[in-house]
């Protein structure tokens, strides 16, 4: 018998596949469908203090080996989104509230509201590659990041995860900062900053010109980051970036991830991707005589 349950610190998951932030998490209905589809946990879209429309279209385009997007952090603001969170009824599938802000007071306010709405953990988005003043601009500054995490930790009792970017040269310093500041987990990686130009019109296709690259092409980048982070810190890691099959998920687990997040693969394989990946993980474990996920996590270090 194969057991694919996993834990991220104090959080228990029925399976290691989580819905990544920004995918099918517009409202309670879309998140319920992802729960129905077998996701082990749900991460909300990144929510700010005020409504934000995001960028004009095109916001998402398909490239040869992945997807390129610049949504621009669209969200209805924490107060209206709170109504969606309150509608989600699930006992076995943890809901994780993703939040974005520019400084510690705003992050703290958002985290407190998320806790009030009943999420099981918060994920700090400090890695969005295409939003001025937010995301990556926060996540590449160790002093600011430390201040934000400390403040959030001091004001809520929930686990705090921090989502990091592959677009930084000081990843080791940043993840060390995150651990020192008291975060409970690291999510790696966010999308890779990228661009595509249409040859005929000679224009970048995305309305925002630059965006974040996701999907199969970025998997090796994510694997490398998770592997490096696992050697730097002791807190749990959630792997994300290009996971499309059960074998991709297992590779992330071997690199040191305790769970994985899935986004672009909802496009490649449909909403049922969670069920499919879990089944593929079970099949691989049976064939290779593993009985628990724990045996696989960090296996590449042996």
């Amino acid at each position, binding site marked *: 018998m194969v057991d694919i349950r996993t834990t991220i610190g104090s959080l228990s998951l029925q399976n290691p596949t989580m819905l990544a932030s*920004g*995918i*099918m*998490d*517009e*409202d309670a*209905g*879309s*998140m*319920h*469908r*992802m729960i*129905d589809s077998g996701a082990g946990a749900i991460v909300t*879209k990144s929510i700010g203090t005020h*409504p*934000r*429309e*995001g960028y*004009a*279209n*095109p*916001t*998402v*385009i*398909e*490239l*040869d080996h992945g*997807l390129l*997007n610049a*949504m621009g952090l*669209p*969200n*209805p*603001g924490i107060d*209206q*989104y709170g109504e969606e969170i309150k509608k989600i009824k699930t006992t076995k599938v943890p809901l994780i509230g993703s939040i974005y802000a520019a400084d510690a007071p705003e992050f703290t306010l958002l985290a407190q509201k998320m806790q009030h709405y009943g999420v099981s953990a918060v994920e700090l988005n400090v890695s969005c590659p295409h939003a001025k003043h937010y995301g990556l601009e926060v996540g590449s500054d160790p002093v600011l990041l430390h201040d934000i995490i400390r403040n959030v930790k001091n004001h809520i009792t929930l686990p705090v995860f921090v989502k990091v970017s592959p677009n930084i040269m000081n990843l080791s310093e940043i993840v060390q900062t995150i651990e020192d500041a008291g975060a409970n987990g690291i999510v790696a990686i966010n999308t890779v900053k990228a661009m*595509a130009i*249409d040859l*005929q*019109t000679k*224009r970048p*296709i995305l*309305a925002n010109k630059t965006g974040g690259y996701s999907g199969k092409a970025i998997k090796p980048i994510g694997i490398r980051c998770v592997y490096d982070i696992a050697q730097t810190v002791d807190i749990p890691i959630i792997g994300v970036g290009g996971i499309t099959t059960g074998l991709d998920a297992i590779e992330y687990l071997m690199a040191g991830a305790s769970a994985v997040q899935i*986004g*672009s693969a*909802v*496009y490649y394989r*449909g*909403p049922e991707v969670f069920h499919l990946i879990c089944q593929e993980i079970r099949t691989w474990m049976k064939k290779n005589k593993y009985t628990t996920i724990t045996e696989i996590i960090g296996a590449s270090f042996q």
Partner: protein
Amino acid sequence: MNRPVITTILTSKIEAPNIKTITFRSPGKVTPGQYFMIWIPGVDEIPMSVSQITPTVIGITFRKVGDATNALFQLQNGAQIGIRGPLGNGFTLTGKHLLFVGGGTGIGMLTPLVEQARKKKLTTTVILGVQTKEQLFFQHRFQRTGATVLVSTDDGSMGYKGFASELAKDVLAKERIDAVYTCGPEQMMTALLSLCKNIPFQASLERYMKCAIGICGQCCVGRGLRVCVDGPIFDGNTLKKIEDFGSYHRDAAGRKIRF
């Protein structure tokens, strides 16, 4: 590959004040009810249902309502636009006597479906609902197919005075209708659905779309039904379970806006 492909506008025609049809070369098989994402470089990319389907040419018909449609309206023949599609599920025809109800610009996308129904020799009744007669378009295209065409205007300037859904109620009472197809203001479509009871029903929904590939969640209705890929055509049984239907849509930020 789901990204805009550059094409040129072949023809453009004003159908009514602020309503225009443009055509471009067909990228392949297109089903009535499907849509394209139309990229106006430097402005926006918006979903547009097809209003004309031939083996070689596709047409879309739209009203000037915002920045993107205004910009598209200004473009001349030969101008470059990006197209992505065809996308979405499209209609499916069932039964022998069909009723089609189009409201406002929703009239446009029903045209290729009515043409398809008439090619299959199905008995076809069409109701075209507009606020006033100047806004009417495609009446002759429908008549040419041999369909029975009825017009309703809110102000009584032409045909039946009142809502298209009220005229449909009369038709449903007099005729044995096997299925109803509709596109138009959502409250018109909810009124129609409530009239249909056990009659098969298909409606085309419109929502703000972003990715159009089923991942961003922007256009979701009900329990995660994606208008962009699970729709835009939904049947009556599905629509009855969607609390959003006829009630609210969401803006670019995801805020609920009541109809």
